[in-house]
């Protein structure tokens, strides 16, 4: 290798005088060719994609998980807004009920703006002038108080209606007004006669800010909400039931039973069990739904026996789970089946012959020859499918949407609902990301564990072929 490079370099130097401009190009080429980092150059695009589509989303999930982003906060900055909910928060969270009432209350202030607005509206100049002179800068807590003040004026309007019309222009409130900065809001409050100590200021700023902030509330909320526990139990139930019954259990049954069949029927059965996997998911679930609809297959078949038609899938949580596990299991079993079948095929025929003459029945053969040889594939399928079941929710979404009544809502689906799609239309990106983050952490931890496990196993595995 070194030799041939030297030769190329030498020929490059020789030809340099002949081909003008050829030499530098050649050297650059050589540099790449010689480089031990060539592999890295070639890997760069793949690396970029990994960063863009894997690392970045995971990092963003990590960041978002510690914010309170939602439809309400938006994902850019926010404003300061005193409204019903922020005042409720002021009362509940910071225990400043009185302050909240105060901010909520409408005040009437005789000020420049009010006078001007009243003049515009056609109030008599004399009235306004006297009002200015006697009451400028004063605030009134109630409309009646302002009106009473106006009535005391010498140049007061003759009709009550006119008095009411003037008083309207001095109505002042921060309520439902968006302020771009906290200072503006505080200044406005101050102007309306509400002055705050620093603690109150902080509380008001906290509750009135409509943008997102960094917070660990998501996790506190996650722990405290009873929904979380339900979702967790749902997830564990879903993952392990599907895994044990189908992805591993049924896959083993298929692989072992086809092993004892003749080649042709065995191939046929394996192909049949591959069908669900290669059917487009939406179509596949649609067929299950059709099976379960109140005008579907099950209802149609049971109708003549006097059983009322109903939606069998969404009828009860038990039914919903049955369908969910069947739907996922039928697809999930095929991968295990393929892996187990090929692992069984790799067992030398002579081992089966030997065990036969040693007196092993079929059951003993499975127990003592096949299963021990499948230890590694079973471990592999278990770990791979645990991860994939943990994160996949598309069949549940398509089939039951987590229903009935959230009884089939698993962690990944609940994340999706919280962050990306729900009926109320108020999306909690932050909380959703926090939920997703839990999945990411569990997934990464399990991956590392499995990788360790596999490495160890492959190193210490007994040789498969004698």
């Amino acid at each position, binding site marked *: 290798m070194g030799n041939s490079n030297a030769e190329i370099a030498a020929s490059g130097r020789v030809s340099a005088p002949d081909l003008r401009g050829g030499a530098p190009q050649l050297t650059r080429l050589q540099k790449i060719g010689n480089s031990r980092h060539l592999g890295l150059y070639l890997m760069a695009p793949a690396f970029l994609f990994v960063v863009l589509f894997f690392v970045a989303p995971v990092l963003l999930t990590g960041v978002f998980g510690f914010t309170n982003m939602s439809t309400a906060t938006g994902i850019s900055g926010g404003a300061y807004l005193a409204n019903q909910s922020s005042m409720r928060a002021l009362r509940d969270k910071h225990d400043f009920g009185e302050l909240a009432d105060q901010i909520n209350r409408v005040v009437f202030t005789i000020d420049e703006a009010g006078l001007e607005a009243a003049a515009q509206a056609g109030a008599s100049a004399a009235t306004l002038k006297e009002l200015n002179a006697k009451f400028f800068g004063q605030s009134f807590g109630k409309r009646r108080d302002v009106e009473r003040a106006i009535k005391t004026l010498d140049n007061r309007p003759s009709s009550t209606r006119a008095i009411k019309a003037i008083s309207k222009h001095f109505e002042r409130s921060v309520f439902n007004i968006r302020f771009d900065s906290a200072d503006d809001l505080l200044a406005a409050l101050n102007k309306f006669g509400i002055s705050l100590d620093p603690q109150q200021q902080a509380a008001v700023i906290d509750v009135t800010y409509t943008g997102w902030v960094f917070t660990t509330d998501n996790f506190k909320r996650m722990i405290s909400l009873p929904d979380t526990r339900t979702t967790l139990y749902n997830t564990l139930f879903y993952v392990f039931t599907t895994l044990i019954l189908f992805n591993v259990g049924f896959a083993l049954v298929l692989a072992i039973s086809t092993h004892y069949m003749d080649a042709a029927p065995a191939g046929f059965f394996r192909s049949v069990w591959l069908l669900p996997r290669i059917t487009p998911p939406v179509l596949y679930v649609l067929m299950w739904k059709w099976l379960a609809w109140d005008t579907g297959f099950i209802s149609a078949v049971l109708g003549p026996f006097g059983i009322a038609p109903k939606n069998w899938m969404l009828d009860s949580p038990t039914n919903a789970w049955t369908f969910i596990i069947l739907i996922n299991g039928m697809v999930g079993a095929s991968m295990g089946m393929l892996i187990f079948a090929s692992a069984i095929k790799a067992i*030398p025929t*002579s*081992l089966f*012959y*030997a*065990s*036969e*003459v*040693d*007196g*092993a*029945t079929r059951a*003993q053969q499975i127990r*003592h*020859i096949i299963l*021990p*040889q499948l*230890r590694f594939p079973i471990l592999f399928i278990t770990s791979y499918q645990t991860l994939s079941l943990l994160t996949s929710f598309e069949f549940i979404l398509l089939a039951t949407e987590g229903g009935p009544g959230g009884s089939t809502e698993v962690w990944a689906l609940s994340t999706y609902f919280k962050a990306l799609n729900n009926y109320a239309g108020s999306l909690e990106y932050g909380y959703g990301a926090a939920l997703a983050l839990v999945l990411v952490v569990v997934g990464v931890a399990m991956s590392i564990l499995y990788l360790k496990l596999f490495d160890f196993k492959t190193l210490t595995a*007994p*040789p*498969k*072929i*004698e």
Partner: protein
Amino acid sequence: MRILLDNFTKKFGTLTVIDQMDLEIHSGEMIALLGGSGCGKSTTLFSICGIHKINGGRILFGDKDVTNITSQERNVGVVFQSFALYPHMTVEQNIGFPLKLRKESASEVKRKVDEIAEMVHIEALIHRRPGELSGGQQQRVALARALVRRPDVLLLDEPLANLDATLRLEMRSEIRRIQQETGITAVLVTHDQVEAMSMCDRIAIMDAGKIVQISEPREMYNNPVSDFVAGFLGSPPIAFLQGRITDGIFVEPSTGTKMPVNADIAKRANGGEVRVGIRPEFFQPGAGAAIKGRVSFIESQGRETLYNVTLPDGNILRSIQGSQSSARIGDEVEWGVDSSQMLVFGRDGMRL
């Protein structure tokens, strides 16, 4: 226990591998199934142990018809060519497996395993896995596993094929010793005539799914029924010449050498085309009918030397001589054929 194959036929699909074979194996005897690759040796063996279901005829163990009995119930021990040890079990578990399947008590299993391990000299390896054993050690484990439950019949499918030359020699006598110690009826499948001749009481030589001859080794060597059998036994192999017998004399066509044959053969083959077989030990300097040729190949085998002598028409005679001989390649020699020891075959290849 006596084994009887009665009119036994085995087919794979449309391919008839064994066609109406009759074979009786005496109780306590070790018999070799000898033949070329693909002649049906393993098929016969697998049919005896029940791994293959047969398509016709009967198989008897003693007087019991086992044709329709599963291999699990036939009580045969088999040593496979690849040994077929269970890779996930230790040597102890491998050997004890047949006993464990019979639900014998752990202590009983232990006792029997220890006993048999001692017999095949692997006591020290009992806790290892097959992957940690040499070929010869695996061989012994396979043998121990086959013997541990005292089978009625021991079947060995090319048990030495995977071993190196020295080990093969050692295991040959080892297997024979154990077979004689246990007095078990044994069938050895092999394509190595030396193995068959040195280990077995009798040899059944097979060709294309048929048994061509069954005899004791020496008898088969001296009196082969056909040129196929004659060609199969003997190392270096027998040499054949083509020619005619007239008036009790075989004339080698290219040199005109006259070799008298005995009267009985002469009568049967008179005027006919024949094939004569001359074993290397009967083509020696200074004896019998002298025939001229050129030394074309010399192979020293240590104590003895093998010479190929090419006749003018290109036929080759082989001679094996003590190391005192001094012929060299290219030398013209005139050595003699002991024509009384010549094996004469008719045009169909059968012995005359």
